[in-house]
């Protein structure tokens, strides 16, 4: 019999296929023992993996120099692996009680976990996560599974992946291994993994809490993220129904595509720019004439999935791909924005006491801390833009000082390029992300110092409402239509209009059809979204009348009743 379970839909598209269950933090080892004459070998195996992990940690820590924060962090991790009492009690379990190496390690973890549960200090308690990661790595080494690449193999081809949590790196791996879709028991719709899955058109449902208990390996599934449902072991009638919708959707997409080559002009003849967000330079292939340029290229992914840093040449090649494809349309390259939920290679994590990474060293703050890294990136951008229209976008700007410092570094990068006799573009624009409320409030001051602004609604909403968008407990309170949010977005748009500079919304709101008319009503004339959303949003824009929308918008700004507000937005 079929079972229906629900979750939060992320990227659209019905998918029908077989489930493959992959849990990442599977520390649950079944008790296992070895025979007496195997004890010695088992103990050696255990010491070997501990030493191997130690060497791995040392190797990655030696790659980054002159960064005391990272060195400290790596030293701390090393002391976990090197822990004397951990090693002793694991070995004792093997030598005296004939435990297998993996059972000795996992049972030691469980006894430590018990002790940590009694600890009140939240920060110390959280260190169990570090220990857990170390345990997972040790167990993986014992099973000689290659670390971290569980999602990049042939097993998951044409399968629907069921897992607990997913990182942006995993999404990329799944995309490359041709997985059909992803269902996670945790996570959030606005995490970076979710954004990535949208832009790669990988159907995904998150927060499907019952998935762990219900879905088994090999189960046939229908997932429909748009309607937030999963059908486990569907019957013939259900299958027929969804296959029909699937084919109808495909033909709808085809018909959308016909309209997309037209310009997005509203009924009252306002030209709206519809640009696209890119994550990976490979995505350039998805681009066609339908977009008015690249409104946001997130460069973080160049830095992910690796232990070293991308060189200037490597970045130059990646950015050049974009410029070559887009030709004379603007290309907005955002400088590195690591931190928060963006998992970058171990080598780049800075600082240790990060209770609240969203408020930590991220975006421009990190770039001003790692100035050389920033300059290398700028140099690559300037070189790649030789024949293009480059817009440099700086994330997480809070103060005018940061803008000035960033501009100084850009000038330094130019001087270096001249010295190195490399050809580059002298024409470029510098803009800022509006995601910190301080910069939104001060937009009239900042607008005099930049060429354009880009509103990153995801972070802006998170900071205005003080909601951590990846915290399961509060994610339901995350509301981009809160009057405080709308008021501030309106203010930034109006300021930019007055100062005659471009303003774009590049957050998730821009690509969601329920907000299109709302944003038009707030006066927005430039949207940037994942390429998959462009056809549908363009269609909506062409059906809209901005004058009429602007009249209706005041009622929404004043409405403090969530349900009523949603209703007003839907009826725009």
């Amino acid at each position, binding site marked *: 019999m079929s079972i229906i379970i629900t979750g939060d839909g992320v990227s659209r598209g019905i998918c029908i296929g077989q489930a493959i269950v992959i849990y990442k933090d599977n520390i649950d080892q079944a008790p296992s023992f070895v025979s007496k004459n195997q004890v010695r070998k088992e103990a050696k195996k255990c010491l070997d993996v501990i030493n191997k992990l130690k060497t791995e940690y040392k190797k990655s820590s030696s790659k980054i120099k002159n960064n005391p924060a990272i060195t*400290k962090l790596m*030293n*701390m991790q090393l*002391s*976990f692996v*090197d*822990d*004397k*009492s*951990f090693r002793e009690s694991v070995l004792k379990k093997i030598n005296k009680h004939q435990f297998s190496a993996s059972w000795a390690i996992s049972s030691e973890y469980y006894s*430590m976990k018990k*002790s*940590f549960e*009694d*600890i*009140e*200090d939240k*920060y*110390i308690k959280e*260190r169990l996560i*570090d*220990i857990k990661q170390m345990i997972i790595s040790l167990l993986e080494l014992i099973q000689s599974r290659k670390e971290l690449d569980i999602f990049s193999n042939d097993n998951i081809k044409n399968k629907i992946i069921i897992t607990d949590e997913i990182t942006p790196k995993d999404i990329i791996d799944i995309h490359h291994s041709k997985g059909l879709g992803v269902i996670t028991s945790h996570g959030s719709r606005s995490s970076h993994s979710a954004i990535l899955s949208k832009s790669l058109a990988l159907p995904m449902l998150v927060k499907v809490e019952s998935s762990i208990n219900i879905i088994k390996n090999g189960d046939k599934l229908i997932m429909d993220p748009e309607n937030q449902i999963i059908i486990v072991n569907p019957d013939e009638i259900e299958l027929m129904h969804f296959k029909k919708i699937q084919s109808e959707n495909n033909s709808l997409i085809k018909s959308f595509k016909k309209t997309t080559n037209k310009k997005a002009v509203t009924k009252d003849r306002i030209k709206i720019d519809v640009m696209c967000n890119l994550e990976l330079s490979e995505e350039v292939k998805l681009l066609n004439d339908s977009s008015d340029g690249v409104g946001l290229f997130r460069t973080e992914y160049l830095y992910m999935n690796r232990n070293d840093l991308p060189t200037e040449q490597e970045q130059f090649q990646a950015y050049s791909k974009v410029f070559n494809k887009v030709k004379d349309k603007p290309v907005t390259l955002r400088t590195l924005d690591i931190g928060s939920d963006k998992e970058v290679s171990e080598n780049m994590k800075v600082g*240790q*006491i990060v209770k609240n990474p969203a408020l930590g060293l991220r975006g421009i703050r990190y770039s001003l801390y790692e100035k050389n890294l920033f300059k290398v990136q700028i140099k690559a951008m300037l070189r790649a833009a030789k024949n293009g229209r480059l817009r440099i976008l700086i994330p997480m700007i809070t103060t005018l000082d940061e803008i000035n410092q960033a501009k100084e570094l850009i000038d330094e990068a130019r001087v270096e390029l001249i010295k190195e006799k490399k050809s580059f573009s002298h024409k470029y624009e510098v803009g800022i992300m509006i995601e910190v409320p301080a910069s939104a409030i001060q937009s009239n001051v900042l607008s005099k110092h930049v060429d354009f602004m880009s509103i990153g609604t995801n972070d802006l909403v998170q900071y205005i409402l003080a909601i951590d968008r990846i915290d399961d407990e509060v994610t339901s309170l995350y509301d981009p239509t809160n009057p405080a949010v709308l008021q501030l977005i309106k203010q930034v748009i109006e300021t930019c209009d007055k100062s005659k500079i471009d303003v774009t919304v590049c957050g998730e709101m821009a690509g969601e059809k329920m907000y299109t008319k709302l944003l038009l009503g707030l006066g927005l004339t430039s949207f940037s979204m994942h390429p998959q959303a462009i056809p549908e949003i363009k269609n909506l824009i062409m059906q809209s009348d901005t004058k009429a929308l602007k009249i209706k918008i005041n009622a929404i700004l004043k409405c403090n009743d969530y349900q009523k507000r949603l209703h007003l937005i839907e009826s725009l």
Partner: protein
Amino acid sequence: MITKKLTILNKLGLHARAAAKVVSIANEFESTIIITKDGKNADARSIMKLLMLSASQGSRICIEVDGADQKDAMKSIEKLFNNKFDEQK
């Protein structure tokens, strides 16, 4: 054997980075170094055991050093605690 009682002064308590420092100092000496809090013992060479003490700011701890270089070892450990593990806070 020498023993000494101390109060944890820094804001974050005996947190992971501080504990890592204790371990690295303890490893410089031959003596056994045991840190006790509320009846729980921890070998100063084990970061995990140190963390499990859950010694927050203001906690009273006892340091026990025993061995050939016990005097120097005690001096170094005491200095580290009193300097708030060389961190600002």
